């Protein structure tokens, strides 16, 4: 049985810093198992957020060797255990303690986005008719588990702290799911342009790279939204032709 060193961010406020823990690494273990083992063996005060341990609740987001990842989905055999494994909290949100951050800002942003507003029902019984192919496009966005790793890695939030002006990739995915929904009649493009600050995104695709659900955030959500915003606000020719277009 091999032993591995985990260099974990510990503490709160200015007194926080890295602390090394050594524990056994056995076959099949993930980083979250190691953190739990350290809690049991060495430091019961070590705080981390977790829930399902199956990559579906999005709670155990952290930075492992500098890469935003879910602790429960990062196997130890993917990591080089000959050197300390660095585990840090997410850096785009206020730090609470140890590996825990306060992600509540995300929920406030989500609440501000205009909700789903379906067209009038298609049938007298109050139901709608939509085609499978039209729904498929937004199904991808519904896989989001709200782990906020995309928000964490986005440099607009992480490095530039544009939280007051920028909604972030998670909320662009959420908005895209609503905007592209075949039943939806609401227009959120103005909101995305101004309050959501979609123009701040400079297409680094980091959000797509870290998404544990493999949502193609940049290509399928953000860029199509940027193009729609361009249609609506920056492209005089498209605006002119829209006069003659029938309702989509």
């Amino acid at each position: 049985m091999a032993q591995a060193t985990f260099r974990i961010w510990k503490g709160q406020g200015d007194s926080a810093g890295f602390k090394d823990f050594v524990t056994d690494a056995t076959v099949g273990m993930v980083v979250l198992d190691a953190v739990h083992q350290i809690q049991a063996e060495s430091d019961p005060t070590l705080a981390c957020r977790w829930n399902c341990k199956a990559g579906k609740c999005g709670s155990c987001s952290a930075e492992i060797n500098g890469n935003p990842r879910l602790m429960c989905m990062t196997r130890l055999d993917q990591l080089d255990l000959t050197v300390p494994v660095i585990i840090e909290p997410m850096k785009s949100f206020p730090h609470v303690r140890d590996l825990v951050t306060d992600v509540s800002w995300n929920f406030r942003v989500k609440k501000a986005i205009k909700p789903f507003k379906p067209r009038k029902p298609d049938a007298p019984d109050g139901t709608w008719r939509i085609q499978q192919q039209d729904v498929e496009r937004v199904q991808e966005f519904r896989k989001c588990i709200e782990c906020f790793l995309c928000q964490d890695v986005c440099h607009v939030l992480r490095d530039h702290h544009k939280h007051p002006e920028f909604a972030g990739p998670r909320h662009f995915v959420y908005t895209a799911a609503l905007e592209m929904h075949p039943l939806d009649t609401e227009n959120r493009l103005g909101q995305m342009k101004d309050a959501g600050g979609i123009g701040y995104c400079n297409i680094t695709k980091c959000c797509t790279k870290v998404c544990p659900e493999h949502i193609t955030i940049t290509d399928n959500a953000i860029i199509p939204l940027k193009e729609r915003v361009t249609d609506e606000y920056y492209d005089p020719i498209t605006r002119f032709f829209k006069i003659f277009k029938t309702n989509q």
Partner: protein
Amino acid sequence: MSHADLRLPQVQKLGQTSRTDVWWLQPLVVLLGLSAFGVYATWAAFQARDYFYHTGGAHYLSPFYSPLLYGAPHEPRWIDATLPSWWPSWMPFSAAFLILAGPGAMRFTCYYYRGAYYKAFWADPISCSVGEPKFRGEKYRGEYRLPLILQNIHRYVFYPAAAFVIVLFYDAFRAMWFTRPDGNGTEFGVGVGTLVLLLNATLLGGYTFGCHCARHQIGGYLDRMAGRPIRTACYTCVSWLNKRHMGWAWVSLVWVGWSDAYVRLLCKGVFTDFRIF
């Protein structure tokens, strides 16, 4: 959006990260690749010669000079003059100067290249979860304000770029017709140069017609595509190309440079074109 005061970790310094992989390799490769292409394309544009190979009845025109608006009488020029009458006499002229801005603007405003050169040239950010220059901090403007808000012209530069692809396919078609040895008419044939130019047009087509802007224009702006089979087929096709946009971008960039180099080396007599049939 709604926000409370957030007490956030300090902004990192340039290059600061806990990443243990070779995160700097990709931006370095992009930096070197784009710089090398930029230097070569500029040099080739200033040459103003060795862009049309017609030895042995061949008809190979370098893509850097196509469409050839002005040129010598034996060249496939579009306008019957060697240079525009309005061109200042003190300024050197190359037919490439008149056209390279078209595909250049397409690449410069391309969503893929934007992400790539922001990282490689401006360190904005230099790589994912790696610190960027601290001076930018909260002054960051992204593409929200001038000057980068002008990147939204991408859709306008797409259409000329698409026209260039059509012209390049015509050039490849023209490269299949060799002047007969007796000088009377042409005959069908395929040389290595023909294949080089045909592949060049194909790769540029894959890149141009797979761009995010084309995807949006062909159907991405719609919420409902059911009942529109032709549009759906086009959207599916463009989406397939778009999924591999980075690959198309790089392969077409390298190949267009190689196509120019191939014609140039033929003209210089470094090697001769092999006629397959």
